[in-house]
C-alpha cells in the first residue's frame, strides 16, 4: 500500500465503560506516526479532554460529533486520501464501516488504510468469523441457535455437555444457565425457551474453567507476522477480559502451549488479512481430559492420568481487528508502541522499516522479551454505585485499570492492589459480611473476588478445592498462599533485616508491614532504610537487557542493580492521576501530560509517575523519565529519593520537587505526607490545600474576606442535624465530611429524609461529622483560574462557565456553557473579584477551581455564593484551554517555576471571550451498569464528556447532545413522567413539546397536567398499577424516542421512576432527569440547533466560521 498524502483519523469519542483513555493514547501515537511519515493528519473526536485533540498533535483538529453526516462534511471539505479506521476503538471502527456503507468513502475517493474492510467484517461478524476459522482449521466453540426442545437435543449431539444456555432478548441472561447433566439440560432449555420473548436460545459449548489467554499480534503488508505480547487472565473464561485480572506474559503455559496458541494467532491474522494490530482471544483447556469443570479427578482431589502426547485443547474465542484496550496494556507492558507501529503499517511501512525507539538500534520487527511480570487489575465503580450489580460477566463494568510491574507475580499483584487507591482495601482487607458457604465468594466473579480468594487461603481451605470452585489456576492460588504465609510470618516473628527484605521483595507495602508487625508506616520506612533496604529501578526495554536501551521507563523492585541513576539538573516529578474512575477521568491525564510538556519546554526535566496503562502520560516519550508505580506516599517518596540520590544515604541534592495539582485527588492527597517528609512541592502548598479543604478554616477564611457561603454547619448526631437543618431551612444539602466527588451527597427536603440520611452516613463512617448546607437552587457557575502565587498577586480567569442545570447536580454531570450566557455584568464583576481575593488570600500558586451559585430575587444582580474551592486543576481544564486558547496548564506550570503571569503575557482578571459558544456535556455508561439509578443529583455518575462548539448557543448545545447520544429528535414520541415538585417548572417545556407536534405519552399525574395545558396525550399506566402494556413495556418495545423523568421525593413512587430510567438507559434513548436540561435540549432543537456548522476548532476560536 502506498503512502497517502493525508489521512483522516477518527477518535473514540467520550470515555465510557469499555472505551477509555487507551484510544487517546492510540490516536495520539497515530498522529505522531503520521507526522513522522510526512502525512497530513485530520483528526475528529468529540471528546475535548484528550491529548490527541490538542494543538500540535494532528494537522487539523475537529472537535465535532462522531456521526456519518458530520464526518461526510469533514471529508468533503478536507478530502483526505486515506482513512485510518482501526485506532479509534469500536466507535471509530463502526463509523468507518458506516461511512463506507453510506457510500461516502467511494464518493470522495477515500481509501481505507491498513486492515481492509472485508477483514474487519470477517473478524466482527460471528458467522463469517466461524467460517473463516473453519477454513484454516482453527477451532471455535460449537454452538447452535434453537427454538424447540427437540432442536436443542439435536444440537447437543454435536456440542456436547457441559453447555451454557442463553435465552435471546432477556436482560442479563435471565432464564439461562450452565448445565452439566442431561436432566439439567432439558430443564434449563425449557425455562430458557419460556423466558425468551421470541422462544429462542443459544446453546454453546461451555468453557467454564478454561484459561483465557490473549495474544497481541501485528502484520505488515509484506506478510510478516509477529506477536507483541501474550497475556493470561487470572479469572478463567466467562469474565470480560476488561473485567479480568490479567498477567503478562502468561504464567502457567508451557512453551508447547505458548507456541501452539501463538501459531494459532498468527494463522488467524494471516487468514483474515489484517494489516496492523489485532488482538486474539483464546480459551485453553486446563487439562487434556477436560469435558466438565471441575473434572472428576479434581473433584475427589485425586490423581491425574493424562495422555502425554496430545496438546491441550483450545478454542478461538474472538478477534479484535483493531487497536484495543489490550493493545494499550500490551504496549505499556512491553514498551512496544503497538498503535504507532500499526499506524505506520497503514501508511505503507514494513515492520523492518520501522525503528524500535526503545533500543534506538533495532527494528519493530521482533517480539518483545519481558524480564518482569505485569499485573493489571480493573477499577470498578462500585464504590460509587453501591446498588450496582457487582457480578462480573460478559458485559464489562470497569471504568479503568491499573498496571504494576515487578520481578515476581506476588510483588506485581500487591503493587497493583496499592495502585487501585481504594484506601482501606489493601491486600489485608476482608469482606465483613462473611459468606456462610466458604467458597461462594471465590466462586462468583465479582470486583472483590481476589480478596475472597485471599480470605479462603487465609482460612486454610485446601488450594485444590479453591481452584475447583473458582476455576482459578492453582499456580495463582499458590502465589496468594505465598503472600499469606508472609503475612503470618510478619504477624508472628520479630522484624529482622532478612524478613523485611523478603517481605519487600514480595511486594509488601510499608503500611501493611506496619499493620502486621504492630508498628507504624514511618517507623517501618526508617527501619528499612537504616538497614539499606530500598528499591532499585529497572528498565522496561523490550529486550530483557539483550541490547542497550534508551527509553527511560522504569519500575521498582528490591534487587541489586539500580538502572535509574540520579540525574542532576532542574527537574520535577509530576504525579499522575492513577486509574480512571468516576470523578477522576482522562481530564487529569491531559493535565499531567501538559505539565510534563510545560516543564520540558521550560528547560526542566520532567519525571512522571503513574499507574494507569491506558494513558498518554505513561507513554515513554511524554516525560524524561517514567516511573510506572502506585501513587501512594511510599512509592512517591521512594521515587523522589531515587531521583536525588538520597536513598542510599548519599545526601542527594534534594532538588526534585513534586507537582501535585494536575493528578486529581490522587496527587493532591500526597501534599500533606510529602510536606511532612520535607519534600518540596511546586505550586500551592499543603497548607493552602488544607485551608481550602478544612471546612472550619475555610469558613473563617471566607468570612474574613467577607465572601458569602451558603449557610451551613457540621454535625455529629441526629439531634444536632435536625436543629441545624431547621435553623438553615429546607431543602438542605447533606454530605459526609472529607468525601470527594460528591459521594454520598444528597439534597434533603424534610426531617424524615434527614434522619434516614444521618443514620446511614454514621453507619458508613462512624464518628465523622456530617455537613449540612443550605441548598440554593440558583444558577451554578464554575471558574478555573491561574494564580501567579507569592510575589505575583495576579489571578487570571481564562473563562467562566455557566451550568445549564441548577445547583444540586454535581458539576461533573452538569452541562457547562462557555462563555456564561446569562450572567449580568455586576455578577461577572463580583465573580472576578471574589476569585482574585480567594486566589491571593489562599496563596494559590497555579490552578484553582471555584464553584459559585448565584441567587436572584429581582432584576438586580443576584447574590454570589461560594460553594467550593479546589486548589488544583479541575476536570474543566482541557475544555476551557481548548475553547479560550489559554494553555492553562502551561501557564500554571510556568507560574510555579517562578515566571509571573505578566512575564508570560497575561494579566489579572477575566481573559476576553473567544467568538464561539462551547457546551460541555456529560456522558454516562448507564446501559452497562444494571441496578444503578440514572437520575442526576449531587453524586457524580458520568464517565466522560463531549464538547459541542459553534457560533451560537443552540447549535453548540445541539451538537453536544448529538455527541453525547442525547440528541432530541426533531419529532417523535416523548414520554413524560414528572415529579410533583417539578411540575410547575415543566409547564413551559410541555408547551414547547406540544406546539412542536411531538406525540406525548405520560404517566397519570403528568398526563392530567398535559391535558390541562390543552395538548393531546397518551396515558401510560405505571407498572405498580399493573397496566398492560405498562410504561416500562412501552419504552422497551421501542415506541418511545425520548424520556423526561424527574425523580419523586415520595418513596412509593421511587421504584417506578427508577425502572423508567433504567429502561431508557437500556434502550439507549435520551432520558432527561432534570427539567433544565430537557428544556434547553428541546429549545436547542427547535431554535435552529440542527443547522450547525462543521469546522476545525481553531476556526471557531479565531472567529472564522
Amino acid at each position, binding site marked *: 500500500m502506498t503512502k497517502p498524502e493525508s489521512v483522516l483519523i477518527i477518535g473514540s469519542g467520550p470515555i465510557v465503560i469499555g472505551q477509555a483513555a487507551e484510544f487517546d493514547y492510540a490516536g495520539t501515537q497515530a498522529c505522531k506516526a503520521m507526522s513522522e511519515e510526512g502525512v497530513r493528519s485530520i483528526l475528529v473526536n468529540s471528546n475535548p479532554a484528550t491529548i490527541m485533540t490538542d494543538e500540535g498533535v494532528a494537522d487539523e483538529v475537529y472537535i465535532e460529533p462522531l456521526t456519518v453526516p458530520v464526518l461526510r462534511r469533514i471529508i468533503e471539505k478536507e478530502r483526505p486520501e486515506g482513512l485510518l479506521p482501526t485506532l479509534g476503538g469500536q466507535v471509530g471502527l463502526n463509523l468507518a464501516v458506516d461511512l463506507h456503507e453510506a457510500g461516502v468513502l467511494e464518493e470522495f475517493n477515500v481509501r481505507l488504510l491498513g486492515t481492509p474492510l472485508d477483514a474487519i467484517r470477517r473478524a466482527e461478524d460471528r458467522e463469517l468469523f466461524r467460517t473463516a476459522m473453519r477454513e484454516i482449521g482453527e477451532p471455535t466453540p460449537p454452538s447452535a441457535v434453537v427454538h424447540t426442545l427437540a432442536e436443542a437435543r439435536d444440537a447437543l449431539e454435536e456440542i456436547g455437555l457441559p453447555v451454557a444456555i442463553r435465552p435471546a432478548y432477556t436482560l442479563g441472561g435471565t432464564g439461562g444457565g450452565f448445565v452439566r447433566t442431561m436432566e439439567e439440560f432439558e430443564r434449563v432449555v425449557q425455562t430458557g425457551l419460556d423466558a425468551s420473548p421470541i422462544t429462542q436460545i443459544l446453546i454453546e459449548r461451555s468453557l467454564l474453567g478454561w484459561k483465557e489467554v490473549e495474544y497481541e499480534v501485528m502484520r505488515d503488508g*509484506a*506478510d*510478516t507476522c*509477529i506477536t507483541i505480547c501474550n497475556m493470561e487472565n487470572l479469572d478463567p473464561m466467562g469474565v470480560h477480559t476488561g473485567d479480568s485480572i490479567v498477567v503478562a*506474559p*502468561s*504464567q*502457567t*503455559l*508451557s*512453551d*508447547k*502451549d*505458548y*507456541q*501452539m496458541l*501463538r*501459531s494459532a494467532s*498468527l494463522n488467524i491474522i494471516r487468514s483474515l488479512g489484517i494489516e496492523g494490530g489485532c488482538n486474539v482471544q483464546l480459551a485453553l483447556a*486446563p*487439562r*487434556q481430559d477436560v469435558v466438565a469443570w471441575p473434572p472428576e479427578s479434581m473433584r475427589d482431589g485425586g490423581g*491425574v492420568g*493424562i495422555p*502425554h*502426547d496430545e496438546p*491441550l485443547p483450545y478454542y478461538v474465542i474472538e478477534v479484535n481487528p483493531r487497536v484495543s484496550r489490550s493493545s494499550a496494556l500490551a504496549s505499556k507492558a512491553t514498551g512496544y508502541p503497538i498503535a504507532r507501529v500499526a499506524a505506520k503499517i497503514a501508511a505503507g511501512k*514494513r*515492520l*523492518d522499516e520501522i525503528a524500535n525507539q526503545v533500543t534506538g538500534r*533495532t*527494528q519493530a*520487527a*521482533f*517480539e*518483545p*522479551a*519481558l*524480564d*518482569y*511480570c505485569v499485573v493489571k487489575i480493573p477499577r470498578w465503580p462500585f464504590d460509587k454505585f453501591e446498588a450496582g450489580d457487582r457480578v462480573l460477566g460478559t458485559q464489562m463494568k470497569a471504568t479503568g485499570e491499573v498496571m504494576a510491574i515487578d*520481578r*515476581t*507475580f506476588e510483588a506485581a499483584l500487591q503493587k497493583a492492589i496499592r495502585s487501585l487507591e481504594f484506601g482501606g482495601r489493601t491486600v489485608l482487607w476482608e469482606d465483613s459480611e462473611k459468606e456462610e458457604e466458604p467458597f461462594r465468594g471465590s466462586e462468583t466473579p465479582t470486583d472483590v473476588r481476589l480478596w475472597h480468594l485471599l480470605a479462603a487461603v487465609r482460612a486454610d481451605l485446601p488450594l485444590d478445592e479453591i481452584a475447583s470452585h473458582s476455576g482459578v*489456576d*492453582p*499456580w495463582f492460588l*499458590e502465589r496468594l498462599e505465598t503472600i499469606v*504465609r508472609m503475612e503470618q510470618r510478619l504477624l508472628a516473628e520479630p522484624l529482622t533485616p532478612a524478613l523485611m527484605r523478603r517481605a519487600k521483595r514480595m511486594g509488601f507495602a510499608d503500611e501493611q508491614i506496619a499493620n502486621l508487625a504492630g508498628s507504624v508506616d514511618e517507623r517501618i520506612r526508617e527501619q528499612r532504610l537504616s538497614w539499606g533496604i530500598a528499591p532499585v529501578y*529497572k528498565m522496561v526495554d523490550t*529486550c*530483557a*537487557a*539483550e*541490547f*542497550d536501551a534508551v527509553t527511560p521507563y522504569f519500575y521498582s523492585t528490591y*534487587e*541489586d*542493580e539500580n*538502572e535509574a541513576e540520579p540525574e542532576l539538573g532542574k527537574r520535577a516529578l509530576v504525579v499522575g492521576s492513577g486509574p480512571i474512575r468516576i470523578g477522576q477521568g482522562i481530564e487529569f491525564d491531559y493535565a499531567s501530560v501538559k505539565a510534563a510538556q510545560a516543564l520540558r519546554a521550560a528547560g526542566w526535566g520532567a519525571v512522571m509517575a503513574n499507574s494507569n496503562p491506558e494513558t498518554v502520560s505513561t507513554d515513554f516519550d511524554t516525560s524524561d523519565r517514567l516511573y510506572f508505580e502506585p501513587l501512594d506516599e511510599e512509592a512517591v517518596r521512594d521515587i523522589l529519593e531515587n531521583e536525588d540520590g538520597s536513598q542510599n544515604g548519599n545526601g542527594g541534592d534534594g532538588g526534585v520537587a513534586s507537582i501535585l495539582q494536575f493528578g486529581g485527588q490522587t496527587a493532591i492527597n500526597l501534599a500533606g505526607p510529602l510536606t511532612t517528609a520535607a519534600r518540596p512541592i511546586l505550586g500551592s502548598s499543603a497548607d493552602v490545600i488544607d485551608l481550602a479543604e478544612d471546612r472550619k478554616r475555610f469558613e473563617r477564611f471566607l468570612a474574613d474576606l467577607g465572601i458569602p457561603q451558603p449557610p451551613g454547619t457540621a454535625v455529629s448526631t441526629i439531634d444536632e442535624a435536625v436543629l441545624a437543618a431547621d435553623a438553615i431551612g429546607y431543602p438542605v444539602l447533606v454530605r459526609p465530611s472529607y468525601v470527594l466527588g460528591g459521594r454520598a451527597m444528597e439534597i434533603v427536603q424534610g426531617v424524615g429524609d434527614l434522619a434516614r440520611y444521618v443514620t446511614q452516613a454514621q453507619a458508613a463512617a462512624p464518628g465523622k461529622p456530617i455537613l449540612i448546607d443550605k441548598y440554593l437552587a440558583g444558577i451554578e457557575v464554575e471558574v478555573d483560574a491561574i494564580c501567579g502565587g507569592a510575589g505575583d498577586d495576579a489571578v487570571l480567569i481564562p473563562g467562566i462557565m455557566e451550568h445549564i442545570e441548577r445547583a444540586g447536580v454535581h458539576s461533573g454531570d452538569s452541562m457547562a456553557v462557555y462563555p456564561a450566557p446569562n450572567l449580568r455584568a455586576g455578577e461577572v464583576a463580583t465573580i472576578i473579584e471574589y476569585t482574585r481575593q480567594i486566589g491571593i488570600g489562599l496563596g494559590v500558586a497555579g490552578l484553582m477551581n471555584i464553584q459559585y451559585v448565584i441567587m436572584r430575587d429581582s432584576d438586580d444582580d443576584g447574590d454570589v455564593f461560594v460553594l467550593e474551592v479546589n486548589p488544583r486543576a479541575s476536570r474543566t481544564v482541557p475544555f476551557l484551554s481548548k475553547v479560550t486558547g489559554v494553555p492553562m496548564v502551561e501557564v500554571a506550570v510556568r507560574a510555579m517555576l517562578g515566571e509571573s503571569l505578566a512575564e508570560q503575557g497575561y494579566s489579572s482578571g477575566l481573559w476576553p471571550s473567544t467568538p464561539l459558544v462551547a457546551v460541555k456535556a456529560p456522558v454516562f455508561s448507564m446501559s452497562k451498569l444494571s441496578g444503578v439509578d440514572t437520575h442526576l443529583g449531587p453524586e457524580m455518575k458520568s464517565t466522560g464528556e463531549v464538547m459541542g462548539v459553534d457560533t451560537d448557543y443552540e447549535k453548540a448545545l445541539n451538537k453536544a447532545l448529538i455527541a453525547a447520544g442525547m440528541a432530541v429528535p426533531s419529532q417523535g414520541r416523548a414520554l413524560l413522567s414528572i415529579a410533583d415538585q417539578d411540575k410547575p417548572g415543566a409547564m413551559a417545556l410541555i408547551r414547547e413539546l406540544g406546539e412542536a407536534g411531538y406525540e406525548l405519552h405520560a404517566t397519570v399525574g403528568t398526563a392530567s397536567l398535559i391535558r390541562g395545558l390543552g395538548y393531546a396525550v397518551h396515558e401510560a399506566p405505571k407498572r405498580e398499577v399493573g397496566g398492560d402494556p405498562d410504561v416500562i413495556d412501552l419504552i422497551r418495545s421501542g415506541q418511545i424516542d425520548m424520556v423526561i423523568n424527574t425523580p419523586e421525593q415520595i418513596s412509593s413512587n421511587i421504584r417506578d421512576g427508577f425502572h423508567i430510567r433504567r429502561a431508557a438507559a437500556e434502550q439507549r434513548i435520551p432520558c432527561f432527569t432534570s427539567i433544565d436540561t430537557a428544556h434547553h435540549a428541546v429549545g436547542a432543537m427547535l431554535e435552529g440547533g440542527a443547522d450547525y456548522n462543521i469546522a476545525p476548532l481553531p476556526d471557531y476560536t479565531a472567529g472564522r466560521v
Partner: protein
Amino acid sequence: MTEHMEAALVLADGAVFRGIALGATTDTWGEVVFNTSMTGYQEMLTDPSYAGQILVLTYPLIGNYGIDPPIDESRQIQVRGLIVRSECESPSHPRGGMRLHDYLASAAVPGIAGVDTRAITRRIRHEGVMMGMIVPGDQVEAARQRLAELPAYDTQDFIDVGVDQPYSWVDGRPQAFSNGAAEPGPHIVVLDEGLKYNILRNLRRRGCRVTAMPPSSGVEDILSVNPDGVLLSPGPGDPQLREFQVQTATSLIGKLPIMGICMGHQVLGRAFGADTFKLKFGHRGGNHPVLEVPTGRIAITAQNHGYAVDPHGLSPDVEVTHINLHDETVEGLAHRSEPVFSIQYHAEASPGPLDNGHLFDRFLDLIGESQGA
C-alpha cells in the same frame, strides 16, 4: 519453611552474585550465557548446545509449569548450571508434575535462585560472555582462584556431547539402529553433534526414516546406510574445532542434499570457504528477527549460538539467504546449484516459535527434486 543454602555465581571478571542454592549443591563451572526466552526452560536445559555453559534465564519466574520428562530435547540435562531470579516451588500444569529443583538435583546439576539475573545479563552484554563458577556462598575466594586456571570454553571440543553409536528415531525415542528396514519415506541421516530431539521429531512427522550418527562418522560411514539426505545438526563449542566434520561436509556436497542447522550451518559455512568468529554475547532467545532475503519477509526465530559465519571468504557458488536484523550477521546460506542450504537458527523450535518448520519441508523438497532429476 526450610532455610535455604546460600550459593554464589562468581564471574571471571571478579563479580559475585549471591543467591540460594537450587538443584544439586555441587560446584560447577562453565561459560556464562543468557537466554531471553520467556518459556521453554526444560527444552533449554536439555539442549546439548548448552554443554559447557552456565545458563542465565532472563525471564524471572522459572519452573511455573514444572517438568514433563517426555519433552526433553536430549537424553539428559546438558547445561552445567542454571541461574534464575525465582524458582517456582509449586508448579502447576496438567503435564508438569515434577519441580525444577528436583529435576536439577536428580541430575546432579547445580543452580542458583534469587539473584538479580538482569544485573548479570547486563554485565555479560557489556563485557561479553565469560567463564563463571557456581559455588557455596562461603567459597567465593577459592572460586576466583580456580577460575583463572580453568580451560576456556573455546578450547573444548565437546565432541562427546554427540552420540557414539548410530541410532534410529522410532516411536518418539531413540532405538537401536536398524538399517534396511522396509520403511517408506526418505531416509535422513542426522549427524548428531548435539542435536535436539525435535529435529528428529520434525523429520519423522514429515514421514522420514531417521538415523542419527556420531559426529565422527566419515563420508563412507554415512553413505553406507544409503541416506537420501544429510542433516548437519546443532552442537556446542567452537566450529573451528570441527575440522573433521567440515571435511565430511565438503565431501558430501554434490553427493547428497544437505541441510545444516546452527553448528551444522557453521560447519557448512567453513566448508564453503568462510571463516567463523565468536560473537560478544551470542544470540540466545526466541525472538530474533531474521530477514529472508529472497522473500523480504521477516522470520521470528529461536536462536542459541555463540559463533557466526563471516561471509567474506564464502565461495561465489554460495549465497547468503538469511540475515539477522539486529546485528546483520549471517543466518542462512544456500548453494546456488547444489541442494545444500543451512540456517543459523532453530527450525525445530522447542523452545521457541514454530514459524520455521517449513525449512524441513524445503529440505525434503530438495531431496525430492534431486531424486526426480
